[in-house]
């Protein structure tokens, strides 16, 4: 047994007290530009995030999808170069999922987008004008946020409807 680990408990407690859920920032491998893709390439949310309307997960597109346009470089952007590099090497882009629902909660995009008719912007913000990828969640994903919306929309607030 590693008793030295016990030393980390006070540190852990501090961390716990300090609040740890969504204050961290993430860095993305490629500085993806949502605005450019929407305005210049004329893409919509569901063109790339294909699961958002029909599946539990919205899915983040990766090389197999990006390949459709970016097999060869379209511009002289440094960031595109990186993408083309990934595609050439047939290597997955290590996107960081920023909007994360904890394991113990059930969340489905289909339920919210197709059945609940919630706009993407309500949770993810004004993505259409974002020139950089997400480094932190637009809203803090915690139960208070979920419950407030569920109460205002008068949908179920039964614990077991989301917890599992």
């Amino acid at each position, binding site marked *: *047994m590693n*008793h030295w*680990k*016990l030393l980390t*408990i006070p540190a852990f*407690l501090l961390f*716990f007290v300090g609040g740890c859920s969504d204050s961290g920032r993430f860095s993305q491998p490629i500085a993806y530009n949502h605005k450019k893709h929407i305005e210049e390439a004329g893409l919509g949310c569901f063109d790339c995030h294909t699961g958002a309307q029909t599946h539990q997960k919205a899915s983040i597109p990766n090389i197999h999808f990006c390949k459709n346009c970016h097999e060869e470089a379209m511009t002289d952007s440094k960031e595109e170069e990186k993408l083309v590099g990934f595609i050439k090497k047939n290597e997955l882009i290590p996107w960081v999922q920023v909007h994360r629902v904890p394991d113990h909660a059930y969340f489905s995009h289909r339920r919210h987008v197709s059945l609940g008719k919630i706009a993407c912007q309500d949770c993810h913000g004004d993505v259409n004008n974002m020139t950089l990828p997400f480094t932190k969640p637009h809203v803090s994903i915690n139960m208070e946020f979920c419950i407030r919306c569920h109460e205002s929309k008068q949908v179920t607030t039964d614990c077991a409807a989301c917890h599992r």
Partner: protein
Amino acid sequence: MEHASARPHPDAALLNPIENPGRTYYYIVVGLLVIILYTGFVYFRQLWYGLGVTGMAQPVTWGFYIINFVFFIGISHAGTLISAILRLSKAEWRRPITRMAEVITAIVLAIGGLHPIIDLGRPDRISHLFFNGRLQSPLLWDVASITAYFTASTIYLYIPLIPDIAILRDRGVKPRWLYEFLSWGWQGTERQHKVLDRAMNILMVMVIPIAVSVHTIISYIFAMTVQPGWHSTIFGPYFVVGAIFSGIAAILVLMIVFRKVFHLEGYLKHIHFNYLSILLLIMSLIWFYFTFSEYLTGFYGHEPNEMRVFWYKFAGDFAPYFWAMIVCNFALPVAILCNSKTRTIPGILIASISVIIGMWMERLIIVVPSLANPRLPYPTGIYIPSHTEWMLFLGGISVFILGYMIFARFFPVISIWEIEEGRHESAKIVAERITSYMPDPEPSATGE
């Protein structure tokens, strides 16, 4: 104020431990601190790995922590309740005893109150109890009643302590600021005495129902479930009686220890031990009566699940503990205390220690067998406490001793001003009281 302490005080024996604590005191404190530190380490280990380091399993999901919780809270009834009853009934022999008893309550309650938290699988989520607590659960009743009892008994300990703190302040005992701060400007004027008396009278009446409610509610933790051996209406009073019983034993042990260590033979006389041990004897008989009716009703009803637990205690795995409990709580103390020849101080010490052990076993016998014998045909549960649980038990006792020693280092364990008051006034008051009991002289004598 150096010269002040040179003045011989009539109760110098009580002030001596505070003014000259001596070396052994610090050795013992260091020893206890070592044990407590190690206990802290053991507890952090439990926090890190989870409750798996204990001996609890399924179906015995409650073990030492809950047993000790009930046990310590039981001991705590020594103090405030008994002191309040003695004060209310104006028993003059209470004077050297009340303070010692009240201190037990305050310290033990703090230790006992921590046990359910030690028992939690996720103590980091304790805030859920405050933000999402559910008043329907007996555990929440416990949180509320133990808080009330703890605050009430601390206040009840503190208020009669004020004049003694003032004595220490006036004698210039260090740390001065502490006594200055705590004495609240006491000067012993008539008006101040009146205020203090009134406050104590209200408190006395208040703490008794609070104390009774606390242990009743602790018994409800068990009695509110439908488990065999727990679901019983007798549990409330049964627990209260057991608590007072173990409490008196704890006071007696402490009195004997202090008498020996601080040389208080002049204050704690044989009569005090005699009276208290007779109270212990009575409680032992009442305890036996409750135990008897508790098991007899179960046995007579002959409900199969109830009987499984019954035989588990009477002739099964728990029989050694059960019969040891009967010996410790009933046979031995009654045998010793019934006879005035054996009702000596060593005899009382043996009886009291046996009662404390016996009452701890009673808690064990209440908690474990009911859990070990589920209603559905599962294998009988086994419970072997681990090193962690034993350590936390020992740690709890060490914290108690240390707490008591720290209290005795700074404050007199026997109420000086109440003794003084007794010297001056009680003889007169008692004489007046006794005359008031007596029939008035025959009026016919003057008529003719």
